[in-house]
């Protein structure tokens, strides 16, 4: 074991152990009473302390409390999360009936910022907060999905609904073509966005999204794509132990499937296609045994999924120590057979006042996830893609007990039986992660604190994949194979910083933070492969059982980051607010001389409503802010400044193995981080005693020195050509967040809405274009990134309907000089493409930008209401003004592929006037009717009822009889309905590759998102 890990582990254990020491309280003047909410329900667990003293208690299950105060002058402070704090003088009362009012939006609320907290009213940067309460008990594996639609300017781009699939988070647009994920800081520990879903959402207290430069510059060279700060729940001091159980279980089903042809229709239409092409019809299409409808492959593949979650938590605190311990199990069985994801998680947070001046504490998170990830992104082997295309006349299992196979004929395509694929798939990945940190905070003098944080984030990932021999499917494998890949990743963090808060006179407030931090990253893997396992039974799927060692590899990478940072906040009379931030980062990712980056940011705020002249009473708060700053992105491929030689090039001579070595990368010594510059203007307004809150921000975010993979001429060979810092990208947009909260008698409700209008533009590429991944085996180009356009626009031809007759072909000036027309290769029923360059030939010069996958607007709307014990929450989210390239339908209408077709082809052109959008069937590709064109671009806008929750909380008097202080039952639905024009399965489509953002919104028949219903309960003891 890593020695540092051992040390940290011991320390964490020690800290946890000490957190259980509970102190006893002294008592003098007795006082008792009840605490209830506005509806009269008793509130258990309300925190009560004597002001200026550490004496306190909490209310019982029935809302009752009793304690002794030092004297009748004492003032009792009642606090409860979600309610306004009350201060009540004891005077001569011996019993109190306290009614807690729900808090509205609190300007005094604290917001977590980098290396500290700030009062919401004082913030001059752009920060959005999500209350942990809003994302509790949703049927999602993690908080990234839960974040979807909740914050203006934060888009969670999902690429399918596979179990455990996390969305890709984009803050203020896609900031770079490279890794554009935000930095995620979990309880002060900077980590990667991929790992944020390791946290059980029910453990999250709040999520802060730092959107502008002023807020995020303190994280320097990792902040260019925004920062997400996740704070997990802690215990509270002077709080009795609270025990909570959350449990839910539910089912998920497919919302929609693709309508495809049945076997007789497929055969008939294939015959038509051959006839249209003037070719003999292959016998297989006349063979009656393949004209019997046998299998609906999508139906066979899609099953009912199950989602379950169980977690328990213990939270509380003594006078000096507080703790929060939780354990959780989440399990999702997807609706595609044999797809699953599960997660165990365990957390201990504790804080201790170790004396008057010293505070220490720790956060410990242990997670184990296990899942398989079926291939659902390939237009050659994807399982859902295959289920749409596999021949409907073939059986799942034939009369001999074998899986149905397309080996019978090349006419049935190179697809394996998708049920065979999911039944025999054996590819699991297990990840075990420890994220632990300890801190100590020493108050050196009044207002001056020194804090040190140390942490470790270690993950062990183990992928175990067994590939069986396949001899009766077309994509055969003649040897079985076991692949084991084992990865260890560590990140070690050390931070030291000083904070200084001081009030000068009565109007000048100064807050300073300055510190030094280092973070070290280590990544090491070994991978090994054996083949030739004589026995494929599960108990033989271990390396020792394989007869041939075919591969073995291993490597290590290390990164280091050394940084200093400082921030100053100054406010004058609560009216004028200034923030200045600076960070310097040294990164080992770059060659000496290009290592250090400097990131300044400034912002200012004016709280107009605090001015003496302000006399608009219904506007309780009005603040304007402006900010500017620079941020960096160092998350680019390592070692690009080195010329690498790749060994292991395999060949043989005379039947003996020979190993070759060749240059695998050409170096770029000048490589450095990408810089983003953000200008942000905002206004924040609260109306009618803060019942209405509105935030409006406008921003311009320019990414400079963007690293581009310039498309290289093939004559360079295959060596990787390094990226160069030559691109410029701009995102600009408007973000609006609105909230309204009100209570009428026992009925209270809350509505919040957000929307973002963001434009993305590649301003400079220094290259004709950037390439994107190609579609399917024919390597069809669908998207390009071009100067003056958003990244990843769709690139192809413009279609103008279908030639209805010979005369239209003869008279079309667009093909007047086209040899295809002269040779009779363009026929009625073929697509008419636009001859953009006017040369009378349809060729590659006629391609243009035909669509934009980025939404013009993304929005979310949440409404919740409660009446007596009932609560209701509705959450809608949507996108508008985006295009989808429905590549799956494009291929599904093309009879030249040896696959089953979309049912839409029954509406094909088959005679004058029969169709102007679906071309004739042909097995030829002479006119390339199904080339990339706007014929297959669809409006991808949608609005989705993402969540609906109806809950009921049992009146306290019933639940308390069985020792339960609060019992809530609820039903939650996810993806309940979607309003969209999109004809495919799901309009939420994401990025095709993990490596870059150069293709988006292309339908590959990804894993569809399910509709999920769960039933759950939350019990507090």
């Amino acid at each position, binding site marked *: 074991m890593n020695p540092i890990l051992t040390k940290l582990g011991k320390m964490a254990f020690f800290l946890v152990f000490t957190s259980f020491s509970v102190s006893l309280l002294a008592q003098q003047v007795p006082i008792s009473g009840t605490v209830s909410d506005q509806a009269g329900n008793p509130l258990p667990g309300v925190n009560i302390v004597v002001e200026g003293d550490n004496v306190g208690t909490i209310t019982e299950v029935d809302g009752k409390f009793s304690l002794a105060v030092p004297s009748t002058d004492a003032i009792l402070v009642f606090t409860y999360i979600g309610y306004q704090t009350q201060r009540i003088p004891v005077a001569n009362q011996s019993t109190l009936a306290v009614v807690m009012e729900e808090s509205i939006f609190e300007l005094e609320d604290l917001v977590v910022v980098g290396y500290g907290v700030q009062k919401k009213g004082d913030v001059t940067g752009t920060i959005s907060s999500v209350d942990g309460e809003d994302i509790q008990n949703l049927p999602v594996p993690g908080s990234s999905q839960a974040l979807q639609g909740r914050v203006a300017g934060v888009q969670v781009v999902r690429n399918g609904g596979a179990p455990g699939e996390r969305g890709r988070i984009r803050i203020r647009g896609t900031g770079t073509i490279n890794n554009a994920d935000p930095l995620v800081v979990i309880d002060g520990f900077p980590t990667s966005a991929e790992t944020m879903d390791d946290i059980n959402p029910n453990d999250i207290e709040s999520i802060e999204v730092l959107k502008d430069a002023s807020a995020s510059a303190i994280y320097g060279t990792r902040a260019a794509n925004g920062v997400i700060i996740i704070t997990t729940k802690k215990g509270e001091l002077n709080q009795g132990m609270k025990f909570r159980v959350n449990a839910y279980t539910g089912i998920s089903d497919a919302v929609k499937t693709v309508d495809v042809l049945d076997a007789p229709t497929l055969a008939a239409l294939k015959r038509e296609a051959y006839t249209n092409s003037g070719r003999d019809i292959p016998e297989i299409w006349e063979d009656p045994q393949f004209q019997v409808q046998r299998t609906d492959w999508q139906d066979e593949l899609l099953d009912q999924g199950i989602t379950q979650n169980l977690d328990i938590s213990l939270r509380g605190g003594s006078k000096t120590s507080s703790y929060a311990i939780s354990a959780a199990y989440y399990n999702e069985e997807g609706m595609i057979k044999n797809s699953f994801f599960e997660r165990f998680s365990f957390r201990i947070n504790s804080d201790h006042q170790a004396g008057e001046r010293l505070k220490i504490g720790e956060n410990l998170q242990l997670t184990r996830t296990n899942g398989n990830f079926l291939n659902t992104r390939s237009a050659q082997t994807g399982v859902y893609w295959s289920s749409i295309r596999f021949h409907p006349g073939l059986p799942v299992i034939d009369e001999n007990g074998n899986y149905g196979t397309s080996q019978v004929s090349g006419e049935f395509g190179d697809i394996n039986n998708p049920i065979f694929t999911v039944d025999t798939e054996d590819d699991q990945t297990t990840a075990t992660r420890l994220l632990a940190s300890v801190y100590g905070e020493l108050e050196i003098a009044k207002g001056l604190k020194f804090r040190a944080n140390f942490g470790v984030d270690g993950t062990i990932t183990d992928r175990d994949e067994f590939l069986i021999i396949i001899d009766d499917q077309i994509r*055969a494998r003649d040897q079985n194979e076991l692949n084991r890949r084992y990865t260890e990743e560590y990140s070690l963090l050390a931070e030291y910083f000083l904070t200084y808060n001081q009030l000068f006179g009565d109007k000048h407030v100064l807050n300073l933070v300055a510190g030094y931090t280092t973070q070290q990253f280590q990544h090491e893997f070994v991978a090994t492969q054996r083949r030739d396992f004589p026995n494929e039974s599960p108990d033989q799927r271990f390396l020792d059982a394989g007869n041939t060692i075919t591969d073995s590899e291993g490597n290590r990478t290390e990164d280091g980051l050394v940084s200093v940072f400082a921030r100053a906040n100054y406010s004058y009379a609560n009216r004028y607010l200034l923030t200045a931030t600076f960070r310097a980062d040294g990164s080992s990712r770059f060659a000496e001389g290009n290592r250090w980056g400097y990131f300044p940011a400034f912002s200012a705020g004016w709280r107009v409503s605090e001015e003496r002249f302000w006399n608009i009473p219904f506007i309780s708060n009005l603040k304007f802010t402006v900010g500017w700053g620079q941020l960096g992105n160092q998350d680019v491929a390592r070692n690009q400044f080195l010329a690498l030689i790749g060994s292991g090039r*395999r060949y043989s001579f005379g039947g003996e193995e020979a190993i070759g070595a060749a240059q695998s990368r050409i170096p770029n010594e000048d490589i450095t981080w990408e810089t983003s510059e953000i200008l942000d203007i905002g206004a924040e307004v609260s109306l009618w005693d803060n019942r209405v809150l509105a935030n409006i921000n406008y921003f311009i975010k320019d990414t400079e020195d963007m690293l581009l993979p310039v498309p290289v001429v093939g004559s360079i060979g295959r060596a990787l050509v390094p990226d160069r810092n030559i691109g410029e990208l701009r995102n600009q947009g408007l973000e609006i967040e609105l909230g309204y909260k009100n209570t009428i008698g026992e009925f209270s409700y809350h509505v919040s809405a957000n929307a973002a209008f963001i434009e993305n533009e590649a301003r400079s590429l220094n290259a004709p274009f950037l390439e994107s991944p190609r579609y399917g085996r024919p390597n069809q180009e669908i998207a390009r990134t071009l100067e003056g356009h958003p990244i990843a626009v769709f690139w192809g031809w413009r279609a103008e309907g279908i030639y209805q007759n010979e005369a239209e072909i003869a008279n079309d000036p667009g093909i007047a000089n086209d040899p295809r027309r002269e040779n009779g290769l363009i026929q009625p029923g073929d697509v008419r493409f636009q001859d953009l360059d006017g040369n009378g030939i349809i060729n590659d010069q006629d391609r243009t930008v035909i669509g934009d996958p980025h939404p013009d607007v993304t929005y979310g709307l949440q409404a919740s209401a409660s009446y007596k014990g009932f609560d209701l929450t509705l959450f809608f989210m949507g996108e508008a003004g985006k295009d989808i390239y429905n590549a799956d339908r494009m291929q599904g209408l093309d009879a030249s592929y040896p696959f089953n077709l979309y049912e839409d082809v029954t509406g094909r052109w088959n005679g004058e006037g029969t169709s102007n959008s679906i071309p004739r069937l042909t097995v030829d590709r002479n006119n390339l009717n199904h080339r990339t064109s706007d014929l297959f671009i669809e409006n991808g806008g949608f609005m989705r009822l993402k969540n609906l929750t109806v809950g009921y909380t049992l009146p306290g008097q019933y639940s308390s009889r069985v020792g339960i202080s609060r019992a809530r039952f609820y039903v939650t639905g996810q993806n309940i309905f979607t309003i969209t024009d999109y004809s495919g399965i799901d309009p939420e489509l994401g990025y095709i590759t993990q490596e870059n953002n150069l293709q988006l919104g292309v339908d590959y028949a990804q894993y569809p998102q399910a509709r999920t219903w769960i039933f759950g309960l939350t019990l507090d003891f």
Partner: protein
Amino acid sequence: MRKLVVLLSMFAVGLNIGCREDLLESTPYGLSTSADFWRNGEDVVAAVNAIYEPLRDHDFYGHSEHTFSIVEDDQWRAGDHSEDQSIEELTYDPSNPQLAAGWRSKYEMISRANAVLVNAPGVEMDEDLRNRSLGEAHFLRGFSYWRLHVIYGGTPIILEEDVLAGNFNKPKASIDEMRSQIESDLLRAIELLPVNHGASEAGRVHRGTAYGLLTKLYVYQERWQDAIDSGEEVINGPYPLAPSFLDNFRIETENNPEMLFSVQALDVFASTAHRIYTTPRPWGGWDFHAPTQELVDEFEPADPRLDASLFLPGEMVDLGGDAGMQEYTTDLSQTGYHFQKFASWRTSGGLDGGQNVPILRSADVYLLVAEAKIRSGQNGDTELNAVRARVGLDPKTNATMEDIIHERRVELAGENQRYFDLLRWDKANIVDIVALLAEDRGNFNPPITFDRNKHYYFAIPQREIDVSNGILEQNDGFL
């Protein structure tokens, strides 16, 4: 006191993590950089081995190189790559993905050869080994340009000085420039390469390989005497025809002296996909490149090469393992036939990945010399009859070009020669490719419109045109 211990231990750990001065130094663990390569002869041999590796690519001899031959009358494309239809029928667009396949593999070979030519002269190593290595690099570079030139015509020529200058985006060379580059590389290879290699090095190119390809170049250039001189170096060298035609296509004997150049394949470790493409689907293959009835009819009645080259209905084939002996039946193929030259099965079952892909055989050179003699007014009987005698066929006397055309067709069936032979013979008015391809002989030899202003070369891949920013120009007729 306890607090102090906690605090101090935290700092101890913190300092341990935090104050690492070397934190910003990046170590390329397990990676080799060009700074520590090229140390000795072993490095040079590794670099030379790597030049051969792209030959195995799916996009090169693994499959795609053969797709350029589907236009010919000997084979139907078969398979399920729908984009192949427009290649076979010459109606493709420059963006057809098959055109781009192999472009990069060939230039990767060129790049690796250039790396050896730039670096090997400065390495301290055995002089014979250096010569052999440089010779291999010259040959393989010349060979890559050869394949580029027969497919696309002129393409960019990237040489040592271009690599050093980082100059890769170049306009295409003329056909003559291509050929003179190929010739000069082959002549250098002949000077540097040994006559032969020991059995453990079988598969490395040698002097005979270079003379063989040079012969073919000269025949394409119609430099008859040069072709004859060069070809006779092969015929009179230690590269005799294998005793049996079939020896060239059976794993045990595929590295015999006749096989001047082939893609070396080793089961599991380094195989190629070619064997899978040419075999029937139910036998584990992908059913591409089906021989046509026209090819079958071309064989003389007594020619054993028909049976050796193709699976014929009624033939029993041992698929090994559980499948065992199977009868080849017509319903396994749409044309009724498959090539059997390119595949065999392990005794334990499954296609054997040790099957090499033939590229150049002495028999080909014999026929080229015979052709050069006939076309320069000499008698080519000796070389032609040597090839015929091996398979027990009667000798020809005063053989004509018609005999050569026939013999090349049956001897080299499926070996990626005929289409390119037809192109050069059409240019020399020996065959009429337009009429030949225009004939409608059913589904598997549909009428194809061959345009002499356009189709002697394939189109340059559209991607390369797009990224060259105007420097690389498309071939005539494809604009």
